């Protein structure tokens, strides 16, 4: 049990309050959606084992509080992040406008060695709401912003319906992995799939 840990990839989810950060994380890790999630206080995380090119990794996903007033905690929580996920609600313009603030705040507080090339992924969530009729941020507009910020990968998701969530997190994992310097990658001699005692495993039905 107490064997050396599998390589850990740390992912931080940021975005305005109520855009669906907790829901996205839970949909990806537990394949569940609930209307009863409470506001995140400080930060919380879930882990998930992922496989990429025959290798197993532990994705540690940090869900953060959306209210700006918690931002001073960033230094502590963003430390060592391998990828940052920026989430907005396609039905709330302000949450899109704020992406820039979240990105800049992250770069200041996490202080990555190569900020120019630090991997971000942008998610436009809640596309299911009102059959798309209450949408105020177009896909085109979002993609243009992502392109201008150094070709950030962009996904439109619905945490409620589970739409595109897996694809988005696969991309997130891949980018987190790319960010990890090659020499730090090590693998234990034997991979103990399912023996880690973690609650969340990716052995659930993928179909």
């Amino acid at each position, binding site marked *: 049990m107490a064997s050396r840990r599998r390589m850990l990839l740390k992912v931080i989810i940021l975005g305005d309050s109520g855009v669906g950060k907790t829901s996205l994380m839970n949909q990806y890790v537990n394949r569940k959606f*609930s209307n009863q999630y409470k506001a995140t206080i400080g930060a919380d995380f879930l882990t998930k084992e992922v496989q990429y090119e025959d290798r197993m990794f532990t994705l540690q996903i940090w869900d953060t509080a959306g209210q700006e*007033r918690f931002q*001073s905690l960033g230094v502590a929580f963003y430390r060592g992040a391998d990828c940052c996920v920026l989430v907005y609600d396609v039905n*709330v313009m302000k949450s899109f406008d704020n992406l820039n603030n979240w990105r800049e705040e992250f770069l200041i507080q996490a202080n990555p060695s190569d900020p120019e090339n630090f991997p971000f992924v942008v998610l436009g969530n809640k596309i299911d709401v009102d059959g798309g009729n209450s949408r105020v941020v177009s896909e085109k507009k979002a993609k243009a912003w992502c392109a201008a910020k150094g070709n950030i990968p962009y996904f439109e998701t619905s945490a409620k319906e589970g739409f595109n969530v897996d694809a988005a997190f696969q991309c997130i994992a891949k980018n987190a992995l790319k960010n990890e310097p090659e020499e730090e990658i090590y693998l234990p001699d034997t991979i103990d799939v399912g023996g880690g005692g973690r609650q969340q495993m990716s052995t659930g039905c993928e179909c």
Partner: protein
Amino acid sequence: MVGRGGLTGIVNIMKRTGAEDLGDFYPIRPDCLADTPKPRFKPRAGKTLSERRWNAAFSEDGHLDIEKVLRRIQRGGVHPAIKGSVWEFVLGCFDPNSTYEERDQLRQCRREQYIRWKAECQHMVPVIGSGKLITTPIITDDGQTVIDSSINSTFSDKRSIQWMRALHQIGLDVVRTDRTLAFYDSEKNQAKLWDILAIYAWVDNDISYVQGMNDICSPMVILLENEADAFWCFERAMRRLRENFRCSASSMGVQTQLSTLSQVIKTVDPKLHQHLEALDGGEYLFAFRMLMVLFRREFTFADSLYLWELMWAMEYNPNIFSLYEKPIAESDKSAESVLNNKLLKQCGKFERNKVKTGCKDQQSALAVFLVASVLEAKNKRILKEAKGLDDVVQILSDITGNMDARKVCKDALKIHKKYLSKAKK
């Protein structure tokens, strides 16, 4: 599924033995029943403060024998039927040493004050008090009114703008506060919580609104039917907690309590502290939420109420009423006036130990020792299994729904004593 008849049978037996079903007091939404853990708290005959005992603790003109009442609460909590009225006393809304008449007057006075504040808020944002609430911004960052939001744009001073900017955040949190409870199915009840938090943010503009205050306020909204009474109960609770919610660009208020926690663990369990420090956890940020929302996420709804009343009874100081009657700015100090022997008996167990040793430190609240007691309970696992801070978080998340509030409090008192005696040396 358990057969209905069987369950009712069990409940009936429990009723006869003095333990009753809490479901009647805080009903859970039918669709959430399966996923909601059962509360551990049960009113116990001879231990829990019952309605009969409570009524008997008042003299004819209304003086309350607080000493007797505190003894009961510390032993077994408060029966759900009377929680609201009891909380008003343990939180310091009222002086036990007053008459019914005096309290009625004070209550009336406070209700009127609340109505005046509410009118001020309503004048700026008419949705206040309308039974509805706001979840989208009504004002932009630079103070411009968002089109089609119905607010009175003549209010453009800094305080009003800062307040209006908090309103949608309050709304976003209200609609996801304790949604497993049937109580919040009602839009009217959600609006009651929103109004109270909005008016608090207006009155205490220094703190305004910070996420987590909704978790503190929600039980008051449920326990006290009158909105103004619920507000004042919340306001008194915030007197103890508001420093935790103070935010600056570089830190959050609760970090002061976290550093006290660090000090406590370092003193009573240096080995554990060393281990946590080695994992880069010397800041104890993993305990952030426990302190911010007073264990609301680690305990079921009914159990957190039980924990809170145990805490407040143990922290009770007979001077809090007069202390809290002063405006917020002047009451930041703890109730440190001289206590004679008689008054010392009216202190809760925790407060008494503090007063006796002359400890005036406001930050060493009982909540800090509750976290210490939780950490101590998991001490072996943390030392053995935690190879990173994420493991610490994982180990601590196992406590959710598995802790006995009274045991945690009891252990916290022990740790407090140990800390006081070691810190002296």
